[in-house]
């Protein structure tokens, strides 16, 4: 009797799961291509924002991880590089996308994600001068030319030092120095 019950339960649950998975599989096959192309588009537009002169980008990977992107100009020449710098700020991990030329001079930076204190740490996004001040600076030697936001020292320093450190790493990789 009991064995009969368990058999019935298992059968019903299995049928429900089977129908559910079939439905999910169908929706997946329709939406997945759209999702992938969207992600690629977002990535491209992000890269273009920090290095607008580039015509195309190529990811340089180590296994599955993307280390950085090489940016190519119209004539297939190397214009520069784009990399993502990330460091813990005051209350969250702050990720910044940085576009540099071959020598490591910054074209533009874009803070991708942060979850800092509203009104204090979030001023790194609200005060436009903070991100704009990085233009034209040498990415692996940032100490004096850039200012922190008053009242958001830890947040600002996280951004500045993450760019500095990652830039040194990338420049070493690229130039072998």
């Amino acid at each position, binding site marked *: 009797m009991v064995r009969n019950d368990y058999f019935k339960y298992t059968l019903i649950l299995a049928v429900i799961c089977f129908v559910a998975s079939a439905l999910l599989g169908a929706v997946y096959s329709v939406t997945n291509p759209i999702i992938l192309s969207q992600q690629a588009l977002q990535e491209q537009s992000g890269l273009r924002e920090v290095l607008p002169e580039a015509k195309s980008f190529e990811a340089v990977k180590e296994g599955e991880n993307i280390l950085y992107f090489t940016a190519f100009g119209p004539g297939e020449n190397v214009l520069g590089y784009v990399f993502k710098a990330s460091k813990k700020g*005051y*209350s969250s991990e702050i990720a910044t996308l940085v576009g540099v030329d071959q020598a490591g001079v910054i074209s533009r930076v874009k803070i991708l994600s942060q979850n800092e*204190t509203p*009104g*204090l740490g979030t001023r790194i996004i609200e005060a436009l001068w903070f991100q704009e001040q990085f233009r034209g600076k040498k990415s692996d030697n940032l100490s004096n030319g850039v200012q922190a936001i008053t*009242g958001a*020292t*830890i947040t600002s320093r996280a951004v500045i030092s993450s760019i500095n450190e990652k830039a040194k790493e990338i420049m070493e990789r690229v130039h072998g120095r």
Partner: protein
Amino acid sequence: MADKYIVSSSPHFVGKESIPSIMWTVNIALLPAGIIGIAVFGKAGFWLVAACILTAMATEYVIQKGRRQPITVSDGSAFMTGLLLAFNLPAYCPLWVGAFGSFFAIAICKQAFGGLGRNIFNPALAGRAFLMAAWPKYLTVFNKPFVYDAVTQATPLGLLKEGKAHSVVDMGLTYWDLFLGNKSGCLGEVCIFALLLGGIYLLYKKIITWHIPISFILTVAVFTQIFKGDYLFNILSGGLVLGAVFMATDYVTSPITKIGQVIFGVLCGLLTSVIRIWGGYPEGVCYAILIANATVPLIDRFVKPRRYGVGI
């Protein structure tokens, strides 16, 4: 003859103390710090104090009237909350910010929990914490002393946290400056001397005992000396003396027993030191006391006074 025979139950002797007498005595004890604070920063400080106190009292009046409860505004507790909140703000903080803080402190932290005696957290500090989260930029800008204008200057602890100065000498100050109030900071916290005067008065009047202030300050001194050095600087900076003498000792939000009070004081000291040394904020007294307030029911449960007549 029958009317000379009075039948009643205890208490048969009633002391002179009452809630108003205690509250107003504390308010008087706070006067020196307030007067010197205004002398250091200018009359903006006076307006801030007035705004906070008036809003606190008005809020309590309106709420008690609306709920048809007896009006207890004249007992001095709302006055004290407003006064202490103003003492914990920078002197040039906008009046509307102080007013909102007072409103929150009385309406939500005190009345919503059931009125005097039923709040879990110190209302003035809860108000300050609320303001810090709501309008942080007004609570992180401090003023230069003796300039009588809104000229900003970082506080000693602020300079330390930002790494711009590492000792008293670096900051161009002496220990006397720190003790007497020639430094930047909140309105009521700068003059340690005046605060200690008020504290000694309260000890004399037996309103507070030494347990919480001494254990609080001593813990901060020892801990900061071990991990950072210069205990004297740490004792004389920030809101430590103000918090230890006037805010941690609040009857409603501190433990009942003496041993419990010492535990509470040590806990406050530990939390303050940890926030000051490793935390994101330069000063930790406000949050340390609030967190410790939350542990008070627990402390009271485990530290029971000896029952009269039972055992040795």
